[in-house]
């Protein structure tokens, strides 16, 4: 994020209106009447938005089911009023679709259900769709995504044709695409106008270019579903990890979720929800607006990692006077510093060409690499050389 303060970026988000805040639809009583002592102990507030041109009215908190530990969590989410559930053909070799189908059961027609296929031709896609319908125990999919398309070259016309055929056959209601690289995909998506819904990686740490891309796609009328809103790292660092206390303090997960829903072009989010407790915590996002405290929490996280961790933006490519692959070396260092995988880091360092492994950053008078994100490159590369060379 060149020449722009992350704090400014977060503040800009804070100043935006809380989209959909006026659309609170209702209150449900969670488990009090059924014997369980609810962790929240309060009525559940629901917030809905219209998913672009699909006209589907979805809860702003929807559910990614990929790592849900037990079908009961999905059933309860539906009972609480969450009305959009997402899975994919490829998750756990089909077991995830089986679980979602079983968990939703008779509630299927009351919710919006999406799945995805990574098939790379028409025949594979349509075969995947038939399998998905069978595993999900349904005769239609509400939104069917082409899965993980990060480059326009990866979407062939026959794949879009497959979605059109599926729609004509009544097997899907709306077509979609999921991507981790919207800035690269947005122009093509806007020109092609092939998708009713775009599922996109989006979170508080991303470049403002992402907002521009999102706005352009939303302007076509496409529904926007945000994923990786809690950015993976928050939840994938387990309790035994040394970083866990730092990453899980101050309600950071909820703050990250609120940040995304504060953006006007986002219609809903599909955070992965593992258990009942996480479901309860995430439900709060529909009742609590993004506030100054959330901004502070997220800014602190960004400041904390800014000098240390490479965003792999590629802007340093070719700028090292010694020809070092800077981003690759920073990544190797993070295997050790970030994951505690010292052996892996040393192994990867040893795989560098001999000329690179022999360079010592301390021998240069001044580092020629200027990181636009504030990573202290010379210091970090020096540490890698000290640890692994």
């Amino acid at each position, binding site marked *: 994020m060149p020449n722009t303060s992350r704090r400014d970026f977060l503040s800009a988000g804070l100043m935006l209106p809380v989209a959909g805040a006026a659309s609170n639809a209702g209150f449900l009583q969670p488990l009090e009447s059924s*014997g369980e002592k609810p962790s929240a102990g309060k009525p559940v507030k629901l917030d809905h938005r219209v998913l672009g041109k699909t006209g589907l009215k979805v809860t702003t908190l929807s559910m990614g089911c990929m790592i849900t530990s037990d079908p009961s969590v999905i059933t309860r989410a539906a009972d609480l009023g969450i009305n959009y559930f997402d899975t994919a053909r490829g998750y756990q070799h089909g077991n995830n679709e089986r679980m979602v189908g079983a968990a939703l059961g008779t509630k299927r027609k009351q919710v919006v259900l999406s799945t995805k296929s990574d098939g790379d031709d028409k025949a594979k896609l349509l075969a995947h769709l038939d399998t998905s319908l069978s595993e999900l125990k349904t005769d239609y999919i509400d939104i069917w995504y082409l899965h993980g398309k990060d480059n326009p070259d990866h979407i062939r016309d026959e794949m879009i044709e497959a979605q059109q055929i599926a729609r004509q056959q009544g097997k899907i209601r709306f077509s979609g695409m999921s991507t981790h690289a919207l800035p690269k995909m947005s122009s093509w998506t806007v020109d092609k106008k092939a998708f009713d819904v775009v599922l996109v990686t989006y979170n508080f740490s991303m470049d403002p270019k992402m907002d521009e891309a999102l706005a352009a796609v939303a302007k076509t009328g496409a529904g926007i579903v945000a994923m990786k809103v809690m950015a993976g790292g928050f939840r994938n660092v387990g309790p035994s990890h040394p970083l866990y206390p730092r990453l899980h303090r101050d309600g950071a997960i909820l703050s990250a979720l609120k940040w995304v829903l504060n953006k006007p072009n986002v219609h809903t989010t599909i955070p992965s929800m593992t258990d009942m407790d996480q479901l309860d915590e995430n439900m709060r996002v529909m009742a609590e607006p993004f506030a100054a405290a959330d901004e502070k929490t997220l800014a602190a996280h960004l400041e904390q990692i800014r000098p240390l961790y490479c965003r792999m933006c590629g802007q340093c490519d070719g700028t090292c006077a010694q020809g070092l692959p800077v981003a690759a070396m920073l990544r190797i260092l993070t295997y050790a510093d970030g994951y505690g995988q010292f052996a892996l880091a040393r192994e990867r360092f040893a795989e560098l060409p001999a000329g690179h492994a022999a360079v010592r950053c301390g021998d240069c008078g001044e580092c020629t690499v200027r990181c636009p994100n504030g990573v202290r490159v010379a210091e970090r590369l020096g540490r890698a050389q000290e640890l692994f060379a």
Partner: protein
Amino acid sequence: MILLLFWMTVAGAAHAGESLAVPPYLNCHSVMGWEQAGALRDYAPDNLYEYKDGAAEGYLIYSFARMRGIDCKSGGTTLAIDVSDMTDADSAYGMFSANRDPKEPIAKIGMGAQVMPLSLLFAKGRYFVEITQTDGNPGANQAGTLKAFAAKIEPLLEGRATLPEALQWFPPENQVSVKLVPESVLGLRILKRGYVAQYDRGQAFVVQEESPEAASETMKKLRARWEGAAPAQMADEAFTVKAPYLEGLCVFRKGRYIGGYANLPKASEAAAKAGILLARIP
């Protein structure tokens, strides 16, 4: 947060300037008529999503450390062979158990395998192996070729070929599947990690805590979770309850193990089944 940044990265698996050695267990020539197509794949936790998209999370929760893989080609058919280091044998088996089709039988390769017409999965030691047809006739049956590759790979992977001990504790009658749930057993965060066996009716579970004291503390919190939890005379301590979303439930503690039975119409039935499970836990 660190992972957060990686989720956003766009760097490929084989980085500029790095030359990657192919490990001996990835050898297309080990089966006659097959050639390697393309370069070695090499993924770590930070960039696995570039290959697996959202499914990457399903690896990460099972302690994924590294995946290396190659494509093997013969005529118009391509097989992707991917070997994932899951840190320890329990996690590798857990990954296998989460990905196998419970309707299909388990074959004896390593700790366990599943052989389908177009894919073969197995776990051995800390490794989880996937061999999948990615290109070719979708109606083909490649089971023979898949097994031939697995037979070459399996001896080259170090580690345990026996099942996790806990699997033997679950009564086999009417059992549909057993899997390692890496976090939040029964959807409850307090039950951190354990095995769950699915039966025709209901499910049994066993969670191992650090110590009997820690297990006792967890039991106290579990009891407090549900109004109407009634003490049961079983093991070191136990209770039964009709719980929302878990129906008839019985939970017991035996030393540092917490086990039980859930999703039966009556709590008394869950208690009877839990007693059978309890007797099998050493």
